[in-house]
């Protein structure tokens, strides 16, 4: 019996040891390093282990607070738009089509696996001064001079982020909607609830967990977006991701960049808690 127990432990170690070590070394340790760095500082291009809260104090300046605030606003806006755009699609896929379900589902998900760099770049072609949209507007005689706020603006960043992350919203919502018991919906209809009332009072509340997860899946990467604002944001639309990247790639201020990153993670954590609480199906215990 003891031998068997030992064998069990050996086998468990064989299976769980390597992945734990790997993730411990390449995920936990780096994140811990980042936390440490955020309390250190840089002197003459050298990182000094000099415990300080100065990096967090710098974050509290209007400059960085402003960028954080605008990033949160953009990320929330992207999340809301994704929800409005994506909900009907998920609903249609899950409940209204049988014949095209597979193909449509795959089509919705495929872009999610394509490079977001390429998808961002595509918007440069569309929104630029000589881009497709401006050419169309000028061709139709709607404007003489190219519309310049299309690219390098909050508009461009928001549009591209919606484009990139809307499948992230649709997928988890679809999974929830698909599992809804059709008998429940039938019953609601039989009880005299119209189509709308059934949707509002039965389907929508039951689908909230899916909405919450979808929102989170959109909010998280939008909050940390770097490639998209960097390429489409220009001078007028700075997001915190670019500022973080700058601390590591340009300013050599790892401590400040680390403090910013931890703050982003904290915001994500708060958002996750709020989203998931809001998404708890009615009637479940807290």
């Amino acid at each position, binding site marked *: 019996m003891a031998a068997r127990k030992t*064998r069990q432990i050996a086998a468990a170690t064989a299976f*769980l040891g390597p*992945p734990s070590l790997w993730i411990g070394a390449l995920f936990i340790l780096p994140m811990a390093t980042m936390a440490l760095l955020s309390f250190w500082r840089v002197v003459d291009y050298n990182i000094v282990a000099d415990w300080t809260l100065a990096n967090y104090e710098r974050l509290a300046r209007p400059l960085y607070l402003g960028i954080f605030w605008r990033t949160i606003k953009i990320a929330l806006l992207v999340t809301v738009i994704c929800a409005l755009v994506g909900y009907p*699609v998920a609903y249609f896929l899950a409940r209204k089509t049988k014949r095209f379900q597979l193909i449509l589902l795959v089509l919705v998900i495929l872009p999610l696996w394509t490079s977001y760099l390429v998808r961002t770049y595509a918007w440069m072609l569309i929104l630029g001064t*000589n881009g497709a949209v401006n050419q169309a507007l000028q061709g139709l005689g709607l404007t003489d001079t190219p519309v310049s706020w299309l690219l390098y603006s909050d508009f461009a960043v928001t549009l591209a982020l919606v484009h990139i992350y809307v499948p992230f919203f649709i997928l988890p919502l679809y999974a929830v909607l698909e599992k809804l018991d059709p008998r429940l919906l039938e019953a609601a209809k039989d009880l005299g609830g119209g189509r709308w009332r059934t949707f509002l009072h039965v389907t929508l509340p039951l689908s909230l967990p899916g909405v919450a997860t979808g929102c989170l899946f959109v909010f998280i990467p939008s909050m940390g977006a770097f490639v998209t604002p960097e390429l489409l944001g220009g001078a007028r639309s700075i997001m915190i991701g670019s500022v973080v990247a700058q601390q590591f790639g340009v300013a050599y201020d790892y401590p400040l960049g680390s403090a910013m990153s931890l703050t982003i993670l904290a915001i994500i954590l708060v958002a996750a808690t709020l989203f998931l609480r809001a998404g708890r199906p009615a009637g479940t215990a807290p």
Partner: protein
Amino acid sequence: MKAHSSSTILLGLWTAFVLLFLFAPLFLVAVFSFNDSSISVFPIRAFTLRWYESLAANEAFRTALANSLIVAGATVVFATLLGMAAGVGVHRYVPRLRTALRSGASLPMMVPHLILGIALLGFYNLVAIDLSLTTVIMGHSVVAFPYVFLIVSARLVGFDPSLEEAARDLGASTARIFWEITLPLLAPAILTAALISFTLSFDEVVVTFFTTGTDNTLPMVIWSMLRVGITPEINAIATLTVVVSCAMAGVAEVIIRRSRLTAAKKGE
């Protein structure tokens, strides 16, 4: 055939519109990649393959493609092996912690790639690991690991433990049980996980950006071309990467979805 209600038609139209929104930009890039003009604007002039030809002749592109394949290939191996081991290990030895560990293992998915990238950079710096394709592979394996783990775990949930127990009662060794029973059962999940890991790594930009040395992968070439001057060659590379990703993910998705849908229909 029953008649569709107007709301169904509206929803269908909306879905079609969203799909158009999702694909039109990619389609546009592909169209320009075949356009015989050195600037990516309308009107489309004539069909040409010259951007692909100039890519094929471009050494930086060929090197980057090779690097991307090496990195993605190695990521597949590491992420798949580790994710599978973790999935099987948790399922078999600590089933009670399954839910908690599943949330834990998906943590790297909850961290934006930007933060993962800089955390790795700071870490490599502090422990003096030189940046190279190897550090990129290590980073990508962390990105892909949770996907593999979750895919494998999900497969194991529906897996009847009595099979393994019966084999053990008959005196089969742990290794033998793994090879003869567990692995075959997991094969489809592993294949999916491998395809997904490949795609994740092949398209990865941000972690690569912070953790690579002097070697570039394809997305890094696109990134630097976007900054060093947009040529239609970008359209060609972009189109190629999209085609590769779609092919990989498409195969995985179609297989999965079809089996899921048929399973669901049978269950009804």
